[in-house]
């Protein structure tokens, strides 16, 4: 297959592991549509431990655990202990199950970075998303616990209509808590967020205004992926969901299946034709501004596919590539009951 210009990996150096699709919360925007108890179909402890061995043996250097809520599973700590000194380990958590003891454990296990989801600057906003009064306080306390033990801890917020107005207060909150970095994430039309799109989505114009109006406190770093930072990171994407499916990226979870690690080695899935196509970076149109900062082409493949139904389409979240697409209106095919998830491309 012809290779497009740009970055390219023969094998990925890092991978995202969606450890579980269970969670102690029931967030209104949950991409994984989590359940309270883990499904029996999820990979078991031994399977995850063997997968860590596989990653180490095959020169992976970093693993990023997320979920669901990884701590919802009792065996997660053991996997973390097994992993922490062998791979650079990141963990994303809602923070509500984190205590000072947890933070000390993470430190002892060698966890390198923690990311805590905090969905607003105020309890009223965050707790509305989680449906759990007190969850905001617990999440902020979790940030402090991890920072207290010396683990770099970032805060993550998914920008949407319910929290956009308080984004600058959010940055001030992050600075007060001592978080060195905030990730302002785009809202993706997957899971429960898709079903609440009318309620949560914003026009690209409004999103762009928010990003342009950020007042970043001194010392705080921001990660965001609007123009000119809209990157097509599929070139390095590696992810496995809780059932062992290789999916490239968690934002592709409803659209692709490249194979299952119970049935084949992960690097066999890396060869899947669609996986190779997405990593190739071949797109119909690219933004020179985003390319100059990110070195990639065409922006996010997940939102390009969601809104246009084509893998080589331009990402409408980039102002240069939007071409009049109203991000508040989802295509009908995404809203159909079995769109993607039961017969995903590549399955």
């Amino acid at each position, binding site marked *: 297959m012809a290779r497009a210009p740009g970055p390219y990996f023969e094998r990925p*150096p890092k991978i995202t592991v969606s450890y579980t699709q269970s969670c102690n919360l029931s967030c209104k925007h949950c991409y994984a549509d989590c359940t309270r108890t883990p499904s029996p179909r999820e990979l078991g402890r031994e399977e995850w431990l063997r997968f860590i061995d596989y990653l180490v043996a095959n020169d992976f*250097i*970093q693993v990023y655990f997320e979920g669901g809520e990884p701590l919802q599973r009792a065996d997660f700590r053991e996997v973390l202990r097994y992993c922490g000194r062998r791979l*650079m380990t990141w963990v994303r958590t809602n923070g509500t199950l984190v205590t000072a003891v947890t933070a000390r454990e993470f430190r002892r296990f060698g*966890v390198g970075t923690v990311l805590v989801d905090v969905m607003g600057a105020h309890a009223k906003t965050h707790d509305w998303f989680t449906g759990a009064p007190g969850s905001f306080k617990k999440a902020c306390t979790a940030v402090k616990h991890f920072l207290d033990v010396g683990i770099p801890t970032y805060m993550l917020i998914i920008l949407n209509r319910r929290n956009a107005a308080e984004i600058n207060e959010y940055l001030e909150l992050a600075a007060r808590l001592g978080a060195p970095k905030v990730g302002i994430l785009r809202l993706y039309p997957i899971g429960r967020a898709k079903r609440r799109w009318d309620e949560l989505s914003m026009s690209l114009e409004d999103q762009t205004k928010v990003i342009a109006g950020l007042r970043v406190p001194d010392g705080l770093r921001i990660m965001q992926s609007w123009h000119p930072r809209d990157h097509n990171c599929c070139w390095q994407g590696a992810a496995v969901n809780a059932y062992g499916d290789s999916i490239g990226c968690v934002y592709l979870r409803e659209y692709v299946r490249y194979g299952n690690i119970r049935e084949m080695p992960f690097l066999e899935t890396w060869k899947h034709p669609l996986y190779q196509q997405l990593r190739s970076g071949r797109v119909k149109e690219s933004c020179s501004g985003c390319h100059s900062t990110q070195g990639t082409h065409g922006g996010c493949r997940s939102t390009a596919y969601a809104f246009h139904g084509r893998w080589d389409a331009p990402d409408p979240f980039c102002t240069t590539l939007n071409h009049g697409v109203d991000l508040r209106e989802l295509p009908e095919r995404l809203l159909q009951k079995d769109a993607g998830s039961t017969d995903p491309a590549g399955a």
Partner: protein
Amino acid sequence: MGYCFVFTPANPRVFTLNPAAWLILELCDGQTPQALLRAYRREAEAAHWKRVELSGFFAAPPPPSPASLRREFARGVRALEERSIIEFCPRSEPSHRCGTRRRQL
């Protein structure tokens, strides 16, 4: 030659090494600092002439001076040591890689 990722488990971080730092890391196999510098100069000069050869010898830049290589080497060693990727024992002892994992691209 591309880049090398290094993971330092003792203080969990991943670093991206440029070719100069990568070369120093590769050469850290228990040599004394003086032997390391000699090896670094040999490799760096060989790499320079290889680049010149590949460019067809036209408009060839001058080779790096011994002083500039020494400075580059010292900067690279300091940077690697500060990040606990290599460690130096006392002057009389050899240099070692710390317990790192590497991924080369």
